[in-house]
């Protein structure tokens, strides 16, 4: 019986990977087709020299960051959550906190099959709601623009990340004080005293924080301090 359950679990995870691959590669083709179709409809060729220059200025950094982000986020997002998140984007500021909160509330481990299900559900719902809200925003863009761009509300939306990580941080840090103390201190020192570190570079610092915390965790785990 236990053997049968194991086989079922593997076949479910296999099907997640199979379906995820089909979806993501299809989405990639669809996204790449968009500029081609627009060019064909409006009989317009891209300025290839400008494409080359633009890619040279943009792609190397974002590809490097993209590779590191992919490796960093997959273990946290789970399989289904990864396939979805890397299509819908806004991972660190929305999908991952949403999945973390769901795992915490459901009291399941991320690596268990229940965790895989909970995080995929949270990320799928978050993706659907985000997409629908953006659609509503696009439809109502004329009346919404003066409200959402108002000087009164601007400070609130400017501070979304500090508000999000204040709530999320207090839960995770308080439950893992020994594990959190060194990485939090390191990041505080780096972000306060290195001028190059700011909102634009926080994405690059996530893998740095993760690698540092893993190494630190391994050391204190081996020494029995946890």
């Amino acid at each position, binding site marked *: 019986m236990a053997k049968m359950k194991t086989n079922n679990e593997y076949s479910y995870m296999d099907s997640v990977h199979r379906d995820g691959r089909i979806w993501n590669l299809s989405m*990639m083709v669809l996204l790449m087709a968009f500029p081609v179709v627009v060019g064909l409809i409006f009989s317009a060729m891209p300025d290839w020299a400008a494409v080359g220059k633009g890619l040279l200025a943009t792609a190397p950094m974002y590809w490097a960051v993209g590779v590191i982000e992919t490796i*960093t986020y997959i273990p946290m997002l789970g399989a289904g959550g990864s396939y979805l998140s890397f299509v819908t984007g806004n991972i660190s500021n929305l999908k991952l906190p949403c999945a973390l909160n769901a795992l915490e509330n459901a009291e399941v481990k991320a690596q268990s099959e229940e965790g895989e299900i909970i995080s*995929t559900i949270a990320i799928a*719902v978050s993706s659907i709601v985000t997409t629908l809200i*953006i659609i509503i925003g696009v439809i109502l863009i004329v009346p919404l623009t003066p409200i959402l761009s108002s000087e009164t509300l601007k400070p609130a939306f400017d501070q979304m990340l500090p508000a999000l990580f204040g709530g999320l*941080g207090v*839960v995770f840090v308080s439950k893992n004080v020994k*594990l959190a103390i060194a990485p939090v201190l*390191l990041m505080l020192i780096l972000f306060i005293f290195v001028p190059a570190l700011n909102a634009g570079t926080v994405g690059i610092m996530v893998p740095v924080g*993760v690698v540092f915390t893993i190494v630190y965790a391994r050391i204190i785990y081996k020494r029995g301090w946890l």
Partner: protein
Amino acid sequence: MEFSVNHPILFLLVGVIITAVLAQSAYFLVKSVKRARVLGMDMTKIRKTIVTAAIFTVAPAVSIVIAVISLSQSLGIALPWLRLSVVGSLSYEAIAAANAASGMGMKLSDLVGNMTASAYVTIMIVMTVSIMVGIWLVPLLAKKIQSGLVSFEKKDKKWSDTLQNALFIGMISAFVGYVFCDLSRLWLAQDGVYVNGDGEVFSATSGLIPVLVMVVAAVIMALCGLMMKLFKWKWLNDYALPISMVLGMLSAIPLTALLGG
């Protein structure tokens, strides 16, 4: 056909892609819920996960709408709608579009009202190709990484749990650090005014705003935890994060008025 950044055909094409994105999300949602039933998971827990995720998403999604509005001034509505619904983020899209415009010897602002179809396609290609990594890399790596984690768990369960916590803490620590990144304005400012490298002017105390917003959100989250324990309000568990986030964001309004932007 005459081109315009808000041509109906662009909305139609973007609509097709957005529908596919919605279909992928719905597919994985249904697949996971079905699997939860097969495993005999508590369906109340599943319903709570759905409701909480939906509520939690509202505020960040509205901030994405603001990013669409911001980019729409130079690129029209259709392209920012697509780019911010699929993969993108405001900071990335603005940089990619600016680099593509620079490749054409222009600034993005030069293209407002003057966007040709060729310039539009050029910008689209740069934006799309530069951000594609995750979409094709996840199919290549996800199974290997997940299998590696499963074998880790079998070898040493305690270390596997610690590793998972370390991943989350590492990510959170980077964002906690980021909240303090403008604190140095306190001692770098001259006569209470700080000017950054781009010539933007800020008050010396403006770097305290994100720190205090984070503290407000953390205190509210802690209070929610306290109330859950004291009054046995278990329901609050599902809403604590959205409540702390929204109240934290709202606290930024008086804090900015007090400390200066």
